[in-house]
């Protein structure tokens, strides 16, 4: 289609621009403002330069949280993406099973995040939780409030339970767009199940997979509510991810300067990693043309 250039079009995006400016850009600027100043209260601010950035970047507390977060994102991507693809491949394509599966899949996505946290917090409790009680009666001394490994396992399983559906739904959308003729041709050509996946289904899912990976990465890297509700970042600091740490610093200790500096670093990391994911995945797509 022919593209037309018309400067009046800017007026049409103006409302959105204003909205974004108020809700995102201005707060971000405020954060930048805080990050380079120090205060001892009374609304008196002093220029601090890059001090807070240096402090954050040299603090082990920040690096620990960052590593925890990277590992967490890595683990849940490694579980949710293959699992999501697997489930999507096995979902029915015709008949009454389709709406049933879709609704079942969409259910976890419809539950508010803090409720998800509460569900798992109760579910995992040793005294009244079904899961906790069951595991302990099997002889596993499961206790997510004391054992860091158990806390991690709980948070990861919860995230997988909550978000794999998103990957499933996106992949499923890619799969149903494949015309039957492709599968028929593959049968005539004597293709194996693996070849069908590799040469027909995967290429068709590629675009939606990119979106799924990006969304899951960004979301898991910013995860806050669920682990906060379940473990509160503990035991110790074992499940204190970046966002939890940030809130502790900003609200708990009221260290506005360092918290603002950390926010900016955090934001840049997400931006950078998303860009890396995006380029890597679209690059491999371009190579194949």
């Amino acid at each position, binding site marked *: 289609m022919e593209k037309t250039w018309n400067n009046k079009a800017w007026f049409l995006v103006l409302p959105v621009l204003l909205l974004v400016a108020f809700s995102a850009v201005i707060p971000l600027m405020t954060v930048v403002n805080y990050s380079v100043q120090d205060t001892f209260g009374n609304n008196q601010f002093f220029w601090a330069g890059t001090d807070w950035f240096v402090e954050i970047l040299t603090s082990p507390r920040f690096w620990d949280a960052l590593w925890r977060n990277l590992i967490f994102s890595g683990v849940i991507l490694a579980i949710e993406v293959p699992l999501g693809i697997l489930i999507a491949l096995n979902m029915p394509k015709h008949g009454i099973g389709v709406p049933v599966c879709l609704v079942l899949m969409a259910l976890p996505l419809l539950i508010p995040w803090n409720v998800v946290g509460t569900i798992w917090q109760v579910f995992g409790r040793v005294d009244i939780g079904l899961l906790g009680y069951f595991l302990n009666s099997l002889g596993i001394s499961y206790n997510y409030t004391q054992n860091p490994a158990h806390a991690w396992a709980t948070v990861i399983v919860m995230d997988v339970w909550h978000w794999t559906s998103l990957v499933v739904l996106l992949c499923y959308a890619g799969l149903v767009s494949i*015309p039957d*003729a*492709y599968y*028929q*041709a593959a*049968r*005539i*050509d*004597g*293709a*194996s199940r693996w*070849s069908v996946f590799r*040469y*027909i289904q995967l*290429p068709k899912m590629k675009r939606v997979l990119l979106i799924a990976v990006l969304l899951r990465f960004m979301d898991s890297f910013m995860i806050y509510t669920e682990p906060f509700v379940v473990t509160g970042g503990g035991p110790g600091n074992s499940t204190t991810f970046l966002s939890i740490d940030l809130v502790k610093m900003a609200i708990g200790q009221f260290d506005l300067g360092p918290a603002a500096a950390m926010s900016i670093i955090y934001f840049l990391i997400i931006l950078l990693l998303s860009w890396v994911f995006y380029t890597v995945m679209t690059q491999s797509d371009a190579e*194949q*043309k």
Partner: protein
Amino acid sequence: MARITLEHIRHAYSEKAKAAGDYALKEVHHEWEDGGAYALLGPSGCGKTTLLNIISGLLTPSDGRILFDGKDVTQLSTEERNIAQVFQFPVVYDTMTVFDNLAFPLRNRKVPEAEVEKRVNEILEMTDLAGMAKRRAQRLTADQKQKISLGRGLVRANVNAILFDEPLTVIDPHMKWVLRSQLKRLHRQSRFTMVYVTHDQTEALTFADKVVVMHDGQIVQIGTPAELFERPSHTFVGYFIGSPGMNIMSVAIDGATARIGDQSIALSAAPVLKGQGRIELGIRPEFIKLGREGMPITINKVEDIGRQKIVRASFCGQPISIVVPEDDDIPADAKVTFEKQAIGIFADSWRAMNETGRQEG
């Protein structure tokens, strides 16, 4: 290479089918001879694709059996039946090169790489794709993709049959002609049984030794192009084959005479009619003589189509087409005579009897 027998095949897409109307294939009982080149001709939705998919094993028929060289293969998979099929819409594996696309059916069957190379290069040559063997298939045009689809059907040696489902629809007319003659040549060399689906009658008539005409889930006639033209066994064949199609008009039969309005037409023999039914007379526009003798008609329109003229007229209140040579002049009070040998009588759409009195159906 195999003789393919279809025994009382019926197929319905829904499991609850009861009435005849629920069946996409009503009943097909037919044998495809080993090494034959068949064209399957019929209008959209008459069940051509369904029939092909049943032969190749993509569909299992609701009723009936399929035999290859006398061996029952009804329950065998597509893979085990060893059939190549080219689909109506191009299917290419986007992420592979053109070469790999063509090699795919061979590599899946563990054909040695040297042999793969040889076969694929032949096909690349034949489909005029040699220049783009190393290109990704994704960015190709629709007709190049269809050529790849076609090529994947032709690349395998020793298949039992090759089924083509309107393979040339998206290809431009000149290339269409080239590919069709290539297919014909390939058939002569390889002697594979070939079934070629189309709804273009010239395509059917040039490709095939035998044309199978389908209508509404049934095979209505199988014959050489000449047989279809001269003695259609169903009014649908008369109307579908030929341009313009056969003139069909309702008549009353009285011994060896057909009556239309106040006109009487003498027949070569008295047709044998079972029961009442709807009786029609069919005559091709080519076998009606226009002159000053015979039965009166009213001319509505004359179309000049080059070497011939088509006269559209009405005869006893029923529309009729007549083909006359280009330089014949058309008298003002035109009259027509029907060539006696070319008249067919149809009872409930099926041919009642031919000129020599032999019952057909």
